[in-house]
């Protein structure tokens, strides 16, 4: 005979083991823009890195007999006025945009961190540093970059330095702002009371608290830098025309664009999609890291 206890229905499983796919799905549901932006960005980075193996030809090879071809099976994006394959040039050109974007984001973050931390931590230097930042920010970024590149010459390194000068004051401002609000917290007083020194407090306590806003701002700087780089190359004041870049290809296509719009179209689409991907990633990270702040300046 069965005992009554055996007749009881099984207890529902209150804590079912999380299926492994749950994490990914939750990320997609909660932060779709991180996933969409991130995947697009990875795709474009892969296209740029593996450009050699993706059916490209030498992007510098001039072939006068094949100039101004429409997009076809042989030339996926057509050829330009010198007969160069636009598909190859666009793929290789992505390297310049991505490299400039990432380098500027990195350099501007480092510079912004150093100046912002110093300004936020040492009141005496605050006024001086912030007046310098005000001065730099009162020159419109593209104009500042144009003026600097005009002076120091248009190599990839110089373009990176010029755009960094134009972009880092914003980062510095943000870092300083967060430092000023964090240093009012009681745990900083506690650290000071415990005999901690300022540099130690910055590294141990302040830095971890400002990582969120900094990462978000760095993605925005990255996208702004890619637009500025393309704008500089587009007006002919950026990286040397010998290196294919999205802005540079558009500059070369400018003269013919009323009859051959595809020369401009392909780099334009790639540039816009890349910047969109970085911006989506930044927006997603902003919501994920700090749900309170919904503004972007």
């Amino acid at each position, binding site marked *: 005979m069965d005992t009554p206890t055996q007749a009881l229905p099984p207890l529902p499983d209150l804590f079912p083991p999380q299926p492994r796919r749950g994490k990914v799905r939750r990320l997609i549901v909660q932060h779709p823009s991180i996933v969409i932006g991130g995947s697009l960005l990875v795709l474009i980075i892969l296209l740029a890195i593996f450009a050699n193996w993706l059916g490209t030809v030498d992007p510098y090879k001039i072939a006068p007999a094949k100039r101004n071809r429409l997009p076809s099976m042989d030339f996926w994006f057509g050829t330009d006025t010198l007969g160069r394959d636009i598909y190859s040039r666009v793929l290789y050109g992505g390297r310049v945009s991505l490299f400039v974007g990432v380098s500027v984001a990195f350099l501007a973050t480092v510079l912004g961190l150093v100046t912002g931390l110093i300004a936020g931590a040492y009141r005496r230097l605050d006024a001086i540093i912030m007046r310098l930042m005000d001065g730099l920010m009162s020159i*419109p970024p593209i104009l500042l970059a144009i003026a600097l590149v005009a002076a120091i010459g248009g190599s990839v390194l110089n373009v990176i330095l010029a755009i960094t000068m134009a972009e880092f004051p914003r980062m510095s401002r943000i870092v300083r702002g967060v430092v000023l609000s964090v240093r009012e917290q009681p745990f900083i007083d506690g650290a000071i009371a415990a005999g901690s020194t300022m540099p130690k407090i910055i590294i141990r306590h302040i830095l971890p608290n400002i990582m969120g806003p900094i990462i978000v701002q760095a993605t925005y700087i990255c996208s702004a830098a890619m637009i500025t780089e393309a704008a500089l190359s587009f007006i002919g004041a950026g990286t040397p025309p010998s290196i294919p870049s999205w802005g540079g290809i558009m500059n070369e296509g400018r003269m013919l664009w*009323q009859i051959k719009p595809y020369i401009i179209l392909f780099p334009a689409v790639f540039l816009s999609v890349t910047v969109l991907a970085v911006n989506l990633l930044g927006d997603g990270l902003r919501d994920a890291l700090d749900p309170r702040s919904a*503004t972007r300046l």
Partner: protein
Amino acid sequence: MLNFVVRRLVSTIPVMVFVALFVFSLIYFAPGDPAALIAGDQASAAEIERIRLSLGLDRPFFLRFFGWLGDVLQGDLGVSVFSQLPVTTLIGQRLEPTLSLMVMTVVLSVTIAVPLGVVAAARQGTWIDRFVMTFAVIGFSVPVFVIGYILSYVFAIRLNLLPVQGYSPLAEGFWPFLKSLLLPSVALSGVYVALIARITRTSMIEVLSQDYIRTARAKGLGQGPILFVHALKNASVPIITVIGIGISLLIGGAVVTETVFAIPGIGRLVVDAILRRDYPVIQGVVLLFSLGYVLINLCIDLIYTLLDPRVRY
């Protein structure tokens, strides 16, 4: 109040001095001899010497800086190396198209962006909100020259509705003037609309959660007056601030837009100057644009201190 106005006015002085110092030392950032750089590759030694003397490059740096600053304060921005014309004259000739483009863009952007942001805030979380926010992300991401070419291709080349390129001065009639600026200013609005719509939405969401909005609803006011009279007025300070700050994006965008649409404005002037290494022109344009930007933001600060008694610094 007077105290604040004076302090705000004084605070722009160090900023402008810094800008002037930066602009002035531009030619020193360049490796090599500034005089040889300006003279170009084909210049003779005598020609380089002439430029060195005419720019006063033989004198000490700060002596030259204050001499130059004195000239600038008297409205003398130097002489173009390329055309031998005064920089102020060159800028004066190009001012109309650039100013028209920017004014039209600001008017267009504010008229589009503020209602978009208000509606997005009022319908927060619905498809309208998501549409406006998606539109804003795209506005931030598609560069002005890309929007410019797309618009020009569709409306000028395919549909033949508007001129492809060029600028028609206001003196030659209002309609041609408006038509020549419509596509450029729509293209230039992209990022500006995105910026203003986003801040309008954020600021409105904040205000709409306030008690006095509930009171307004309770006394039977319609959605329209609540949104556009009660809420927008109180949400306006961040919006106006961003409109001012955004001018900086607009100036950079104007340089590029003028290249796309072949508008003979200050942007073209500076682009041509870069290709010719015409430093006095580059310096003059950077200085003028920065001064304009600082003054606009100064005015905005002062205006809403006067209008809004809550703003105190």
